């Protein structure tokens, strides 16, 4: 690991100011993704601002919904009585990811800001437009079994690894931030992550002087909620595809560089389509890269099964 300096933040706005003023500074929350990437020389910040002790870990009722502090651990969110009772899809999505140890350490804000697990992003001997803009993408034409089927570009076919964000998408969560001037704003979870386009190194719409302070859940939609995930191992493995559903809302995970809200499937269902017709309406825009073509069929079956379950 390369040398870096370290400080512990005492308030969110000044942390946001510091991160934008010091060259190559990064926020450190749980550290489970960032420190791993630093060991692999994929991330090499010169300065870390430890935000893990900021008083942003509360989970509390707000406006008929729930306000989840960005420094709440993933485990604390999944265990929260309100989350389990009113937002079960969120608890299920969180415990479908990582291990017990990692969920204890990883924070909500860090979960959202974690980086792709694309094997070529991790392999520093191969070109990757995320690591080095303009270098090229080795996953295109390479071993791309895990690659995206929605929203990819000729520059990047990686996926976002967060299970939690897929549940947040169907819950229509808002992400609250504060910037260096202390100005707060919220953005919809579906507007947080960027699709790769021609600049896959730009991963979110969070500004350079901005820190995520909370995730805000509106009241839960009517109807049941569920999360289903397919992967290579029964536990502790990234997804090949996942489906979150809440009422009439559906989102897909591990198929794009962000949680993929299946709005075409939702619209088809609202117009009276059958479950498989709704899945096909969404998948009409899917494209495989060769190794991941099976994901289109896998996603079709998973979506159909989840919709059938929801209608039962």
């Amino acid at each position, binding site marked *: 690991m390369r040398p870096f300096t370290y400080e512990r933040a005492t308030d969110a706005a000044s942390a946001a100011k510091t991160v934008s003023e010091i060259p190559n500074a990064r926020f450190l929350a749980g550290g489970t993704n960032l420190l791993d990437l630093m060991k692999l020389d994929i991330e090499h910040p010169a300065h870390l601002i430890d935000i893990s002790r900021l008083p942003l870990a509360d989970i509390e009722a707000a406006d008929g919904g729930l306000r989840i502090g960005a420094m709440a651990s993933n485990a604390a969110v999944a265990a929260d009585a309100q989350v389990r009772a009113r937002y079960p899809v969120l608890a299920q999505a969180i415990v479908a990811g990582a291990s*017990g140890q990692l969920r204890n350490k990883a924070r909500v804000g860090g979960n959202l800001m974690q980086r792709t697990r694309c094997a070529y992003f991790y392999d520093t001997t191969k070109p990757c437009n995320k690591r080095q803009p303009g270098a090229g993408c080795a996953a295109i034409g390479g071993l791309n079994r895990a690659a995206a089927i929605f929203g990819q570009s000729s520059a990047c076919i990686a996926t976002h690894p967060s299970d939690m964000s897929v549940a947040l998408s169907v819950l229509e969560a808002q992400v609250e931030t504060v910037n260096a001037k202390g100005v707060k704003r919220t953005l919809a979870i579906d507007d947080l992550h960027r699709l790769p386009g021609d600049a896959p190194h730009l991963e979110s719409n969070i500004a350079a002087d901005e820190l995520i302070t909370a995730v805000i859940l509106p009241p839960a939609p009517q109807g049941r909620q569920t999360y289903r995930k397919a992967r290579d191992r029964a536990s502790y493995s990234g997804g090949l595809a996942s489906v979150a559903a809440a009422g009439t809302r559906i989102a897909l995970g591990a198929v794009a560089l962000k949680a993929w809200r299946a709005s075409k499937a939702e619209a088809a269902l609202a117009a009276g389509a059958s479950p498989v017709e709704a899945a096909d309406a969404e998948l009409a825009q899917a494209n495989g890269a060769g190794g991941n073509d099976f994901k289109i069929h896998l996603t079709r079956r998973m979506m159909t099964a989840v919709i059938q379950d929801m209608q039962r």
Partner: protein
Amino acid sequence: MTELSPPGGPFHADVALSVNGEAHSVTVDTRTTLLDLLRETLDLKGAKKGCNHGQCGACTVLVNGVRINSCLSLAVMHDGDAVVTIEGLGLPGNLHPMQAAFLERDAFQCGYCTPGQICSAVGMLAEAADGEPSQVTADLGAPIALTDAEIRERMSGNICRCSAYPQILDAIRDVSGSAL
């Protein structure tokens, strides 16, 4: 804002923490992981460096009673924390019930993963008692019943290359079934 290791250097910082009930104040290179602090500075060799990437669980310790991968945490992040390692759970002659159960059930072969397995199991039982759900929990509103499927799922962050999983399951079931 506290500048422990200000921009430009020096690249080290002070950290004061409790390990197995003993207070320590040390100056560390900021890159030092909690695992390396325990093993190399404090000479507590129980926690093991397996993968060094949070994938194997051999480095699992309890921080303020919660199990984490000590390889994926910086020592400087733990100022003021209370860390318990396998040595702090118990030593020969005064074993923790989980350590005794692993011996009784022969829940290891080479033993490299064992300290992490035991610390993880102790943390896992506390999580289940607190009602934390897992992927195989059917009823998110009910108290957790630690079935074999629950124990396996909750221990999936600890890999055993010798594959002593059946005996590890037996040992944890023994302890979870008794008053701890």
